[in-house]
C-alpha cells in the first residue's frame, strides 16, 4: 500500500438542538435534533422519505440555514458558515457530477475554485483516483462511464478537497443491487484508509446496518435512536424502529402475561416462559422470523407448514395454527420441510421484543438486561 500523502482530517461533529422549518410549515423538518459524532466515525443517517435525513445532511453541509441550535465541527461553531467555508466534501444523490465537464474537470473543480496550485491538484487527483481505480477514465464525461465508475468519481471529487467531514446523500441509489453491495464494501475499506468522519444518508436499512459504525434512525424530523447496528437490531427503542431496521418483516403479536409469568401469544397457541413482567399486563410482542425455532413433530397438532420459500442459505416458512393465525420463520437451509408438515415452535424470552401495547415503546428487553447484568 502506497504512503498516503493526502492530508486527511477528521473532526468530531456536534449537532445541538437544531431546529429547521421549511417556509411556513408548522411541522419542523428537524425538531431540536441533537447528535454527537466522534472523529473518524462512519455514521449512517437512516430514515424513510420525509424523515429529515437529507435536511440533516444539508444543514451539516451549510446548504440550509437553521432556525435555532448550533452545529460544531470540533470546537468551531460553523452554524453561520457558508458551504464553501466549512471544509466538507459531499457526494450528492445518485453520485452527481457536472454533466458538461470531464471527470478530471469535475473532480478538480473545487480545488481550482479554491486556487490550490495546479501541481498539488494533479498530485491529489492521481492519488485519489488510484485508490478508486478510475485513473484511466478522467478524460470522459459522466454520461460516458458506468454507474459504478460515476460513483467512484463522485467520491474522488469529494475527497480531493481534503474535507474535515465527508457527507454522502444516498450515493448508491442509482446503481443495481449487486454493484451496490460491492461499492459498500469499497466504501468501508476507503473509510478505514482515510479515517475522515463520514455521514452517510440512506433510506435502505440493509445498507445502513451493513456499513456503519453507528446508525442514527430518523422519523418525522426527530432522532428515534442512535446506536451500533447490533444495538438497533437487538434493542430497538420502539416497535416502529424494530420493523424499520428489519430485513425480514417482524412477527407482531398482541400478548398478555399469565399467572405463571408466561407471555401468551395468539390465544395461547404460542407461549414464552419467564416473561418477567407484571402479571396480567397486556403488551405488544415482536419476534424476528429467524428467532422462532421450528422442528418437525409428527404428533404436533397446532402448527402446520403452509408455504416455504428457498432464499439461498435460508428457507422462509409461513406456518399456520388451527385458528388460522400465520407467522413467518426463517431457518437454515440444511433440511427442507414440506408444506402441511406438522411442526412445533419455540420462542425464547431473550428473543422477544416487548413493547407497550399503547405507545409501542420498548420495555427493557431481557437480552439487554442480561447483557448489562441486571437480569
Amino acid at each position, binding site marked *: 500500500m502506497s504512503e498516503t500523502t493526502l492530508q486527511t482530517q477528521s473532526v468530531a461533529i456536534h449537532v445541538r438542538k437544531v431546529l429547521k422549518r421549511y417556509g411556513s410549515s408548522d411541522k419542523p423538518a428537524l425538531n431540536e435534533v441533537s447528535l454527537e459524532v466522534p472523529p473518524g466515525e462512519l455514521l449512517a443517517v437512516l430514515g424513510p422519505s420525509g424523515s429529515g435525513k437529507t435536511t440533516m445532511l*444539508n444543514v451539516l*453541509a*451549510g*446548504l440550509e440555514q437553521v432556525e435555532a441550535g448550533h452545529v460544531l465541527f470540533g470546537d468551531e461553531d460553523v452554524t453561520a458558515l*457558508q*458551504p*464553501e467555508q466549512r471544509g*466538507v*466534501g*459531499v457526494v*450528492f*444523490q445518485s453520485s*452527481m457530477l*457536472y*454533466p*458538461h465537464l470531464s471527470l478530471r474537470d469535475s473532480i478538480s*473543480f*473545487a480545488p481550482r*475554485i*479554491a486556487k490550490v496550485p495546479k501541481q498539488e491538484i494533479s498530485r491529489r487527483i492521481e492519488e485519489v483516483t488510484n485508490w478508486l481505480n478510475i485513473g484511466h477514465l478522467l478524460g470522459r464525461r459522466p454520461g460516458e462511464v458506468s454507474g459504478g465508475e460515476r460513483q467512484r468519481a463522485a467520491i474522488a471529487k469529494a475527497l480531493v*478537497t481534503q474535507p474535515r467531514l465527508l457527507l454522502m446523500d444516498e450515493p448508491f441509489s442509482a446503481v443495481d443491487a449487486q454493484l451496490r453491495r460491492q461499492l459498500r464494501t469499497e466504501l468501508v475499506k476507503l473509510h478505514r484508509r482515510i479515517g475522515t468522519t463520514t455521514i452517510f444518508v440512506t433510506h435502505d436499512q440493509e445498507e445502513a446496518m451493513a456499513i456503519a459504525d453507528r446508525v442514527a434512525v430518523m422519523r418525522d424530523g426527530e432522532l428515534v435512536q442512535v446506536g451500533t447496528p447490533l444495538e438497533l437490531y437487538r434493542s430497538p427503542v420502539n416497535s416502529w424502529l424494530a420493523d424499520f431496521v428489519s430485513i425480514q418483516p417482524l412477527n407482531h403479536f398482541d400478548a398478555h402475561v399469565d399467572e405463571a409469568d408466561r407471555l401468551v401469544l395468539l390465544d395461547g397457541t404460542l407461549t414464552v416462559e419467564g416473561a418477567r413482567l407484571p402479571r396480567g399486563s397486556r403488551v405488544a410482542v415482536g419476534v424476528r422470523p429467524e428467532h422462532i425455532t421450528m422442528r418437525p413433530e409428527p404428533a404436533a397438532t397446532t402448527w402446520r407448514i403452509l408455504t416455504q420459500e428457498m432464499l439461498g442459505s435460508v428457507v422462509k416458512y409461513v406456518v399456520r395454527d388451527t385458528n388460522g393465525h400465520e407467522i413467518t420463520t426463517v431457518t437454515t437451509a440444511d433440511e427442507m420441510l414440506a408444506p402441511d408438515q406438522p411442526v412445533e415452535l419455540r420462542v425464547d424470552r431473550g428473543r422477544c421484543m416487548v413493547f407497550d401495547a399503547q405507545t409501542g415503546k420498548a420495555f427493557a428487553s431481557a437480552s439487554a438486561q442480561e447483557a448489562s447484568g441486571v437480569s
Partner: protein
Amino acid sequence: MSIRRKVVVHVAAVVLAAWTLIPLVWVAIVSITPPNEFASRPLRFWPKVPDLTNYPRLLGREATSPSGKVLEPSGHSSLIVHGLINSAEVAVVVTAISLIVCVPAAYALARLNLRWREAGLLTIIATRALPPIATTIPFFALFSSLGLSGTRTGLVITHLTITVPLLVWIGTSFFASLPAGLERMARVDGCSRFRAVTKVVVPASGPSITAMAVIAFLTSWNEFTFALIFNTGSTAQTFPPALASMFFQVSVPTEVAAATCLGLLPPLLLAAVFQRYIRRVNFVGIQ
C-alpha cells in the same frame, strides 16, 4: 418497434420530408434556370445549361452568362442586399437582447420557489396566443409618436415581443431539466450563489442556450408582419418584405427564386450546424 411500425414511420417520414423539401429544391432549381428556358414549354425539371448569374447580379455585381454575355447587376440588388443586411442586424440584436433577458428569467422561473410561478409562466406564454396583427395598431400609434416607425430599433422592439415569451417558455423547461442538485454542488465546491450560475449553470446549459439563440435568430429573420407594416419602403426594410415587394414589381421569376434562396441560406446554415441542439425543443415540453 415492430417491422410494420417501422415501415409506417419511415414512409411517413419520407412523405413529410418530400412535402417540405420539394418546394425548396424546386425554387433552387428555378433560380439557376436561364430565363428563356424558364419561359419555354414544355418546362424542364433540370435546366440544359445551369445559369448562376442571378446570384452575383442580386448581390450587385456584373456577371457573365453561360452564352458569354456580360449582364448588369439586378435592378433589385440594392433592395435585396440592404434587406439581408438589415435582417441580419435586427436578428443579431434581437437574439442578443432575448438571451440577456430570457436566460435569467427562465432560470429564475425554473429554479426559484416563486409565488405565482405557474400563473406567471402561463401569462407569458398566453401573450403568444395574440396574433402579431392585433398589436400593430397600438405599436403604430406608439412608434409614430416616438419616431420609431421605419427604424431597425422599432423592429427589434416588435420582434422582442415575440421572442421573449417564446424563449422564456422554452428556457424554463430547459433549466428545469438540469439535475436538481447542480447549484448545491457548486455551492459546496466554493461558488457563491451568483458564481454557481455563471460558472456551472450557464456552461452546463450551453446546448440549451444555443438552441434558444438559434430560435430567436430564426424567428426574427423570418418575421414578416411587423416588418411589412412598419418598415416597408424605408431604409430599414428587412429581407422578407423586400422579397415580397419583388413579386409586385416587374421582375423575372428566376431572379425572385434566387432571392428566395439567398434569404433561405442563413436559416438553413444555422439549422444544419445546430440541428442537434434544436432537436431538443418540441415546443410543448422540452426533451
